[in-house]
């Protein structure tokens, strides 16, 4: 057997594996984009009802086709590059924003073993990807050559760096409980019914993580980077058409991601809440794990919309105060307590 033959065999195997990887990526991304489209619909409907309105109800039955119509509109619109802007960066920015928010899905398991990349440091990877996303915002704000956009970018940079710390500390708690950074193993560590889920010992960290997640995704009431009433639309004020829709898509993909991660890390992921509960477990045995995960994630997603409809926007100094003076101290206190708790071997760590 000579060298070229080995190479040929290698190449075929390589093409085959890459085909499967691409196929899996498509399998994750297509439903994700669809979910984003209908999250916007859900958002408008839910907030509409909360504010005693009807929400979209013209396009299609009960407004079902509204997101499709919006998408078509955005695709048809012209992208205007402002004068005096840095053109390359202006175009790259939306890509840099959406790239990490899609890439983070690579390590999200949908059921036992149903994951694109079973990475050991999955938790860290997710943290890395969510923190890279800020470059899209900063570059967009800077390249637009606009004061509002720049202000939005600056706000976003400061905010994301601050909340990332709290988020990272909250994840350390998860790591301590699960003894692993692999998301699949984190979920497996929670098996044994609803009482074994991490949200019980990690309740303060869940709150910190969840709110930091809202802040990281720039959602109301932390949408300082956009702040319609203050800086018009912040970092993406100069964007329109497809470029804008990329920002939009990434923001909603991030929302869904944060909901999934919260479900995975604190609420047992794909595990049934009735594990080890006799009859209830038998009755619900037919429900696939993915459904449980979707239910849990949908709950958190609903909460995001609920929060948006309920709370007014934070003032900037209040955001910084919350991040540095409340969240970080809370996590710093809880982590040593947790360490003692785990070492003591008291329930639920026995």
């Amino acid at each position, binding site marked *: 057997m000579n060298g070229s033959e080995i190479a040929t065999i290698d190449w075929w195997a390589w093409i085959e594996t890459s085909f499967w990887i691409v196929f899996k990526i498509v399998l994750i991304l297509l439903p994700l984009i669809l979910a984003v489209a209908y999250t916007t619909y859900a958002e408008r409907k839910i907030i509409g009802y909360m504010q005693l309105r009807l929400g979209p109800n013209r396009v299609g039955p009960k407004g079902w086709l509204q997101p499709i119509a919006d998408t078509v509109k955005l695709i048809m619109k012209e992208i205007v590059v402002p004068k005096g802007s840095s053109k390359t960066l202006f175009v790259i920015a939306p890509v840099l924003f959406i790239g990490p928010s899609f890439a983070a899905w690579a390590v999200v398991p949908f059921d036992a073993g149903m994951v694109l990349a079973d*990475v*050991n440091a999955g938790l860290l990877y997710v943290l890395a990807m969510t*923190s*890279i996303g800020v*470059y899209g915002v*900063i570059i967009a704000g800077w390249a637009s050559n606009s004061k509002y956009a720049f202000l939005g970018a600056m706000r976003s*940079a400061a905010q994301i760096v601050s909340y990332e710390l709290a988020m990272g500390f909250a994840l350390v708690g998860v790591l301590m409980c699960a003894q692993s*950074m692999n998301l699949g193993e984190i979920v497996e560590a929670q098996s044994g019914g609803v009482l074994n889920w991490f949200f019980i010992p990690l309740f303060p960290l869940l709150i910190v993580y969840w709110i930091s997640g809202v802040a990281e995704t720039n959602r109301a009431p932390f949408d300082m980077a956009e702040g319609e009433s203050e800086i018009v639309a912040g970092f993406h004020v100069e964007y329109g058409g497809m470029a804008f829709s990329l920002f939009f898509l990434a923001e909603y993909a991030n929302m869904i991601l944060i909901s999934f991660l919260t479900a995975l890390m604190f609420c047992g992921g794909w595990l049934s809440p009735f594990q080890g509960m006799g009859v209830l477990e038998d009755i619900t045995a037919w429900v696939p794990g993915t459904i449980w995960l979707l239910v849990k994630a949908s709950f958190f997603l609903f909460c995001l919309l609920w929060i948006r409809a309920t709370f007014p926007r934070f003032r900037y100094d209040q955001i910084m105060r919350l991040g540095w003076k409340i969240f970080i101290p809370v996590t710093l206190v809880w982590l040593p307590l947790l360490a003692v708790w785990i070492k003591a071997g008291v329930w639920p760590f026995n």
Partner: protein
Amino acid sequence: MTFQAIVFYSFAAWLIFAAIMVISSKNSVKAALFLVLTFASASAIWLLLEAEFLAISLIVVYVGAVMVLLLFVVMMLDVDYAALRQGFVKKLPIALIIAIAFFVVLYSFLTHGEFSAEKFAEPAAKAADYSNIKALGRVIYTEYFIAFEIAAVILLVAIIAAISLTFRGRRNRKSQNISKQLAANKKNRLKIVKVDPVVSANETSDELAVNQSEKQS
């Protein structure tokens, strides 16, 4: 050439390209962004070496935090790059000589030193469940315990120094006390007073006006 070699060389090429752009880019923001790209490619090379924890830490710490703050500063500054570039051509030969000398030293590192190919064997591939996070943690808390703790003290000094250099204490100015603002509640701010109805509901405003004018006169 194996697949890994292709990946390595492409990322290495990216790294070198980005590193050159960092120092040759005309715009300081773009230079900073190329530095981000440098970090990202370096992290990819680490991933290739199965050091995934270090690779991702590089992304989280340098790309995610340090460079964001650096960009923050660079975007606000108006650096005159023309002034910085003065004497570039004049100093280039010396710089090149130094660079080549460094390269030679580093190259002999790989050929003669403890890390040369014949002395430093290729490490065996790790088992699938090998976690280099655990391995790293074990070394840090045993062999390098004292160094690790000193590093923590250095960070503490950095915090104290930064605060003592920037915090100027309470100043006499009107500022918002956020905890006081947040502590405000309905009970303190809103008072519901029961007011006796002066006019009955069925009286029209005209009648009211008439009544009042009568009282005045």
